[in-house]
């Protein structure tokens, strides 16, 4: 993980069908920690080896939050593949999140 609140976690060999996420969190507050955990678990299970998660801490990068119009945390944005999808919250319901990310039925 990079320092200063922006970190990237991704698979060794990014492929064409790699899922790229941007996850906006607010430091270590509980909702953000939960979202980080839930997203990581979900990607490992359903997108092994083909995901990238760019985490932005809004407390350290307010301008990035502003640029992306991020009002609430946690906010997850699916950057690729298009179309973009935005989710608010802890991502606690894996079924709902998978459906929103068009991953239902994936292995």
């Amino acid at each position: 993980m990079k320092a200063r609140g922006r970190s990237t976690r991704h698979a060794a060999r990014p492929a064409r069908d790699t899922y790229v996420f941007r996850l906006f969190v607010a430091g270590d507050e509980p909702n953000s920690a939960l979202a980080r955990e839930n997203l990581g678990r979900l990607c490992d299970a359903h997108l092994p080896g083909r995901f990238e998660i760019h985490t932005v801490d809004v407390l350290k990068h307010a301008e990035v939050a502003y640029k992306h119009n991020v009002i609430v945390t946690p906010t997850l944005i699916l950057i690729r593949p298009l179309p973009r999808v935005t989710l608010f919250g802890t991502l606690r319901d894996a079924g709902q999140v998978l459906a929103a990310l068009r991953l239902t039925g994936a292995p």
Partner: protein
Amino acid sequence: MPTGIAGLDVVLGGGVPAGRVTILSGGPGSGKSTMGLQCLLRGAEAGEAGILVMFEERAATVRQDAWSRGWDLARLEKQNKLFLLDARLDPAAVMAGEFSINGLLAILDHRIAAMRAKYIVIDAVDALLHRYDSPSRERHELYSLHEWLLDRGVTTIMTVKAIENDKARSEYAFLDFMADCVIHVDQRVTAQITTRRLRVIKYRGSGYGRNEYPFVINEAGINIIPMTSNVLQHRPPGARISSGTAWLDDALAGGYRQGTAILIAGTAGSGKTTLACLFTRAACLRGERVLYLNFEESPEAMVANMLSPGVTLQPLINKGTLAIRSYLPEAMGVEEHLFHSLQDMSECRPTSVVVDAISACKRMGSEQAAFDYLMRILNACKERGITCLCLNQSSGRESIDDISGIGISSLIDTVVLLRHRQAGDTMVRQLVVMKARGSRHSEQFHEFRITNRGIVLAKA
């Protein structure tokens, strides 16, 4: 902190509480967003930066609406004195568990520091609250936001939609307990005329005006017209001035007195307007300025009709000593009329004002509306030492005590009554001075005729 809305600062005893949160609630179109923006603008113009957080409107729309009022937001934004933050949540976003508005707070923190912002206006905070799935979460989030704002020490105005539904109102009732200052605005329709009202519900640690105050929104923004003060500051009656009719001056022991209120009451066609116009002409010929507020005739019709009793007004208008302003009573609510009348008064700087006729003022909405209007006009005149001549068309059946029909008699210093009497096959006009405060006066019924050379006594 002054709001920049002159009347509101008087009502609030100086402005909104500095470093605290003020709640501004009201229904749709009640003017709460405009008020918020006007406060930010005043601050920005005075060099104190402010931030507008919008949960409902687009920044571009706000800029456009402001532009139509002559407010150049873009210039202030460029000067870093104003920042519009579009905080609308993506309606397509999926709600997937608990969240908080830390993103917004982080952006705000950054901006407050960068701009040294003193003011924040949070517009339509209810739009944010709707995104939470439970009332307790809404409440919790709002309390955190309130604490956060207090910690930052910025002066905040939050606008909230007031919901008429009782259940919804109780859900948001905690807002009123939380904030240090709560202001409610509404617009209501009485007898088909819309009026806007403002009321301060609470203001911790401050004296404030507790009444409902009428206000208007015009192209320049919000205008509130509070009673200028709670003490009577009327000037004492001034020198004698001619009524414009020599024999009436005699009956009044020398004429009216400057700065007093005079009521001329009478049935239709009894000569009220003629008497008022004779007074007007005499005043103008003395070099004084007269403002004639006409609720019954257009200036052109009035000028033409007055040629019959031989009162020429056009030269006085041309000279600029006479200003006739005609308004349709039902065109506006009482506070809008008041606003226009007071504006006319400050533009014309008259020595005398004529209101023709107070009976028509009832058409501003109700008898109460007419009373409000007249009382404020009479007070404004008396504070400025302006003579105010009110005409009232009476049915002739009112009791002597209630000749104005609107309950303003205590503010009236002089009452002149005109009436008809039948004598054989002719109509006889009569005038009597019923009251002349602080002065002796004739108690006789004077018979008079309206000729093409004014009003003359029937018998010498």
